[in-house]
């Protein structure tokens, strides 16, 4: 029952959302005296302030026995306690003896922040009977009623049209010429613009809130319009195209012009006050009249006025009039006005904006700053008072208030914490702050994004207590304590160890970490004191049991305390650390903290990892090593070529961390890091390593342990991705593919491979083969030329394969990065090369059928297979073409020599030599090249032709296309084809010369006296003809 009561008291009385709605008993029971209020005289702040306590402020400024005119501004940021101070001053005045406050001579008016709108302000003025003029009163009542009943849409439209009217009627020319003002009015009247301005959350809706709706949000009233209301390209373009001419003209001036839009926004905001008054149907004169009349009436009654305005923001539209009337000093020309002491709460922003209105009128400023409330003492005192009021019986508290709320008599609760616990002194009495301790109060306050008493109350005390009470009421599903700012334990290894306690739920692990981070000393170390008390991280074990964490047994061994603590102080929770003077934080430390926060946010709050590029480079250094240092995996020693490790792991894109900010393709990742405790610890370890520039830091052994465990848990999968092979399976035959490519390339280019022995062969296979476009390399088939072109077109791919072959079989000493250094000399793993060479020889260099069916694109280790897959079919085509061409050439040579054998060849070659002799004898000039070629001994030429025939026949018999290609590579076909071309050429010459001879014979037959000569010539020609016949020239068809 009592937990329900505590919760109810807290929510209904002690910590309400709006502290001004708090009933007096709780307000007084929880009031925290301000001790450091900066008080300035006048409206400026150039001179140094005097520091007053709230009592001094009251006695010196609020008490006003001399009836001085005072306009006191209470300034501060949102939530700093302005309202609280004003309410306290008001309550103090009300409860003062008649010598200080006499209701018969002093009219006290208090305008609260509730219903923070013009309507709210007027309602309070009516309620407190401030408005004496019946006509004005009637008018205001009408406005209040109408804003209650009026349709919101209609009200919004009224507001918009009020702005349009104000702009349309602006003849001042201050910002825009009147003609432009009419254009603007026209633009604002465009249906598209209107709809946008009337949207929910838009400018007009904001203005509506100012006028009618209660709002806790403090609005800078001049900022009804913002740039977003007009900076909408689509709308501007539509108005330019389809709007009426005036609207279109104006739209053109603001299109893409941010400055013009800003100018328009500022211009429209100037009309807000006028629009508010117009919509509320209250004129400046009537507003002024309300307060003037009040002062006159009070004067007549012999009374003065003390006016407390909690929040001036609600007076939008009538603010300047109110200031004018409140700042008018009584006496002299204004002898009919009563004295007024006004205490006005106002935010710093608002004050700065209307400084001109205030500066010369304000008599005093009280500045509420964080100096007034930010100290540890203040916070624990404040928490103590609120917690006390929650644990107290409401009736007892009310009775105390009724009896004058004497601070020394403040009732103290009877709540008993489960163990000894921190207390605070309120006056002369002590009260518990359970379930908070002093450390947690300061830590939770410091973790607030906006540090103010209001935020501390709402976000710390109320939010945490609600969870504590709910936990006690419902018994399970504990959420206390919460750690919204994700404050981390200072002892990271302990935090990590908690994350590894699988017997606890994730929620309980978070709660434990929150306790140690916010309540404790940042660690989870356990200690057993001499009296048997067990503490974890400095917190009594009973506290853990009280909030459902009794299963927690601490991290590491429980230390046994042997020494006796003086004065029993050790039984108390640790005092909050005294704030140290701010240290200068260097860039490295900032980065270290930045990374740590990022990693913890990623792990605990599922935030995306912001600095993943840095973490991925750390992982690269760990796994691959740096330029001159080896990594944690000794790649080359475990059988993975250093070159492959270096090439595969060099690009940061292959490192992927779950939920990293950098968009990367996870499927291409080689090193994957999931979001887990182990990964978090590994990243933290690398952060520590980076920061300490080595392993010499506290907790290094722990982080090493976690890092190595992460690495070992991922090692096999990293290796598998680096090598594209299963750890226990066969490795990808990358070197085999590279060697085959080199072999085929050499063959295609007609380059020689030294086959003396295996070492020579391996050595020549590692050469950089280039194609020499010379006579020797002229190919007889288009297919072969195409294949040469194919290889030349893929130069970079073939070059990569050669580099991969050469670099990956070289041994590497130290960092794998050295493997890419072409200058480093290193012996070769020839054992591996030899095995591959033997295998390739066995399979006649034909591994087409062994190539993988599915080959990933652009993959360092698969590129060679992909190339081979394209190359092998072309090789087959070439071989086929060469075979056919060989047959054709052979067959044509047979047409000249008959069956190709030594005897026939010698006969033919001898005949050729004879023919060239006849030509020479008869002065016939044939081809010198051919004649020279056939001057050699016919037997040599015959043997050469026979050798070529033998090579081609051998090629035909090879078992694989690769071997056939190798046989054809020597270009025997070309040599043979050359002979064929020679024979054809010689035959053509002989035919030509025969025809010439016949013609010459005919001529000679008609001339006398040359018979002898003719005889000899005829004989020669006859021989020649016979030779030609023998060569079956007549059958040759070109």
């Amino acid at each position, binding site marked *: 029952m009592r937990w329900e009561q505590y919760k109810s008291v807290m929510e209904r009385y002690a910590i309400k959302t709006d502290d001004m709605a708090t009933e007096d008993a709780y307000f007084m029971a929880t009031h925290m005296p301000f001790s450091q209020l900066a008080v300035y005289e006048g409206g400026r702040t150039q001179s140094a302030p005097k520091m007053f306590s709230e009592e001094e402020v009251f006695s010196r400024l609020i008490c006003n026995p001399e009836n001085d005119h005072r306009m006191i501004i209470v300034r501060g940021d949102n939530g700093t306690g302005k309202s609280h101070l004003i309410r306290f001053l008001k309550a103090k005045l009300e409860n003062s003896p008649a010598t200080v406050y006499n209701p018969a001579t002093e009219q006290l008016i208090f305008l609260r922040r509730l219903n923070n709108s013009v309507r709210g302000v007027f309602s309070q003025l009516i309620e407190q009977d401030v408005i004496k003029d019946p006509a004005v009163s009637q008018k205001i009542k009408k406005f209040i009623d109408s804003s209650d009943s009026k349709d919101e849409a209609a009200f919004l439209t009224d507001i918009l049209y009020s702005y349009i009217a104000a702009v349309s009627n602006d003849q001042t020319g201050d910002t825009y010429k009147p003609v432009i003002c009419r254009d603007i009015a026209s633009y604002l009247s465009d249906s598209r613009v209107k709809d946008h301005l009337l949207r929910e959350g838009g400018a007009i809706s904001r203005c509506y809130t100012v006028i009618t709706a209660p709002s806790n949000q403090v609005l800078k009233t001049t900022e009804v319009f913002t740039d977003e209301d007009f900076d909408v390209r689509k709308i501007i373009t539509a108005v330019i195209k389809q709007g009426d001419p005036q609207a279109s003209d104006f739209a053109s001036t603001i299109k893409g012009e941010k400055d013009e839009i800003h100018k328009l926004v500022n211009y429209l905001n100037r009309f807000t006050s006028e629009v508010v008054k117009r919509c509320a149907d209250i004129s400046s004169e009537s507003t002024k009249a309300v307060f003037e009349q009040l002062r006159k009436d009070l004067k007549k009654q012999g009374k003065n006025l003390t006016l407390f305005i909690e929040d001036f923001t609600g007076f939008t539209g009538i603010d300047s009039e109110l200031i004018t009337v409140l700042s008018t000093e009584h006496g002299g020309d204004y002898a009919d006005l009563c004295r007024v002491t006004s205490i006005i709460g106002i935010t710093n922003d608002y004050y700065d904006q209307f400084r001109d209105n205030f500066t010369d009128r304000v008599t005093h400023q009280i500045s509420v700053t964080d100096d007034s409330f930010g100290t540890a003492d203040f916070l624990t005192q404040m928490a103590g008072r609120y917690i006390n009021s929650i644990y107290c019986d409401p009736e007892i508290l009310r009775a105390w208030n009724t009896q004058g709320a004497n601070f020394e008599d403040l009732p103290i609760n009877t709540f008993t914490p489960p163990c000894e616990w921190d207390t605070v002194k309120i006056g002369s009495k002590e009260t518990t702050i359970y379930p908070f301790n002093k450390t947690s109060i300061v830590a939770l306050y410091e973790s607030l994004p906006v540090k103010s008493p209001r935020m501390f109350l709402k976000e710390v005390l109320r939010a945490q207590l609600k969870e504590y009470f709910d936990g006690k009421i419902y018994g399970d599903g504990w959420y206390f304590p919460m750690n919204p700012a994700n404050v981390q334990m200072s*002892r*990271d*290894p*302990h935090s*990590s*160890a908690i994350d*590894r*306690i699988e017997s606890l739920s994730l929620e309980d692990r978070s709660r434990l970490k929150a306790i140690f981070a916010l309540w404790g000393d940042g660690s989870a*170390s356990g200690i057993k004191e001499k009296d048997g008390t067990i503490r974890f991280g400095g917190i009594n074990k009973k506290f853990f049991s009280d909030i459902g964490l009794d299963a927690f047994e601490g*991290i*590491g*061994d429980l230390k046994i305390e042997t020494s006796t603590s003086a004065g029993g102080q050790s039984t108390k929770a640790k005092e909050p650390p005294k704030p140290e003077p701010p240290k200068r934080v260097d860039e490295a430390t900032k980065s270290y903290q930045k990374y740590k926060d990022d990693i913890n946010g990623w792990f605990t709050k599922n935030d995306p990892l912001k600095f993943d590029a840095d973490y991925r480079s750390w992982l690269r*250094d*760990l796994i691959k*090593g*740096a330029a001159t*240092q*080896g*990594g*944690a995996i*000794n790649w*080359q*020693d*475990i*059988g993975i070529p250093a070159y492959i490790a270096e090439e595969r792991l060099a690009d940061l894109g292959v490192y992927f961390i779950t939920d990293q900010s950098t968009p990367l393709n996870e499927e291409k990742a080689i090193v994957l890091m999931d979001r887990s405790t182990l990964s978090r610890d590994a990243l933290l370890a690398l952060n520590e*390593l980076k920061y300490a*520039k*080595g*392993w*010499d830091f506290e*907790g*290094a*052994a*722990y982080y*090493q*342990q976690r*890092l*190595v*465990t992460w*690495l*070992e*848990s991922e090692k096999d999968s990293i290796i598998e991705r680096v090598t594209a092979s299963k750890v226990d399976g066969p490795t990808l035959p990358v070197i085999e593919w590279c060697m085959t490519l080199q072999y085929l390339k050499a063959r295609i280019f007609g380059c020689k491979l030294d086959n003396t022995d295996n*070492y*020579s062969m*391996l*050595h020549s296979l590692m050469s950089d083969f280039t194609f020499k476009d010379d006579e020797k390399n002229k190919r007889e088939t288009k297919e072969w030329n195409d294949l040469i072109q194919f290889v030349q077109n893929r130069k970079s791919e073939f070059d990569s394969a050669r580099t991969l072959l050469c670099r990956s079989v070289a*041994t*590497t*000493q*130290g960092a794998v990065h050295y493997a890419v250094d072409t200058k480093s*000399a*290193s*012996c*070769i*793993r*020839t*054992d*591996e090369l*030899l*095995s591959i060479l033997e295998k390739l020889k066995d399979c006649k260099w034909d591994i087409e059928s062994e190539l993988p069916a599915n080959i990933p694109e652009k993959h360092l280790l698969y590129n060679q297979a992909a190339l081979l897959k394209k190359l092998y079919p072309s090789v087959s085509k070439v071989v086929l073409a060469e075979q056919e061409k060989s047959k054709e050439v052979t067959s044509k040579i047979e047409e000249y020599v008959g069956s190709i054998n030594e005897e026939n060849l010698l006969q033919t070659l001898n005949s050729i030599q004879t023919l060239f002799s006849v030509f020479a004898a008869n002065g016939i000039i044939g081809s010198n090249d051919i004649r020279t070629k056939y001057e050699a001994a016919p037997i040599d030429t015959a043997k050469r032709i026979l050798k070529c025939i033998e090579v081609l026949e051998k090629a035909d018999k090879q078992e694989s296309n690769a071997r056939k290609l190798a046989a054809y590579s020597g270009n025997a076909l070309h040599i043979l084809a050359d002979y064929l071309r020679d024979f054809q050429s010689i035959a053509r010459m002989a035919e030509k010369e025969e025809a010439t001879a016949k013609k010459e014979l005919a001529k000679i037959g008609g001339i006398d006296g040359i018979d002898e000569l003719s005889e000899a010539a005829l004989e020669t020609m006859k021989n020649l003809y016979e030779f030609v016949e023998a060569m079956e020239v007549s059958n040759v068809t070109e």
Partner: protein
Amino acid sequence: MFKTNPDGMRMEPTPERVLSVCRLIAQKSMTHEELRRAMTLGQNGDKEVDQINKSIAVALEELNIVKTKDNQLELAVDSQVIASPVNFRRYIGNTVLLKKDTTFHLFTKWIISKNEDIFPLKTWETMAKICGSEVPELSSMSENAALGWRFWASFLGFGYLSGTMIIPNMKIRIEDVLATTFADKFNYDEAIRATDFITWISTKMPEVDMSGKLPLAFSAGLRTLHELGLIKLETWRDSNRIFLYSVDGDPINDFSHITVRKEVAK
């Protein structure tokens, strides 16, 4: 690398090179000269030849994996020993590492005994210097010797290279021993007393002083194997406990029983 002290522990004969030498000889017996020609493919550069000569010396004189017969180098062990880097490593771990008079052993033992004290030593030179001043037998220990040692130390599983340091963690070394000889004495998947385990394994790892609290490198190795599920460390009530090197935050700082999973032998 594994010579009787003193040994310069040169860097050139890396595990990769020594294994390659052994494997080449396994394919075909050959002379030194042939081997040099083979491993340089006839290029015979000074640097490469030096690498090969030193690697031959390690394989021949220190590891005894190859031997000379009629001026020919030939394999002296079962070819399975060099079938994979893991086999090669485990063979060395169960043979040469048992020798206590090598510089490698002395230096390894010193590093392991230093625990966290090696963390502030940021260079191998400092490490060699300090070791030289602390271990009389290693008074002439050089930076180069330490640099050479690190390749084999990381290969044989004494730790993980990290920048200019080694992270002491004997996960691989312990795993190798458990994979090869554990079953000779105990059964896999059965909890055995920590004291029995330590008595047994101390004979397999003379480089680790197991007489008191276990050193960091060995403890870290056990912890990693435990976290990977390859062994299970437990503390049973009323049983004698073996204390691991205490690491703040680590859930396991002692154990009374250990279960070695069969998976470790894979």
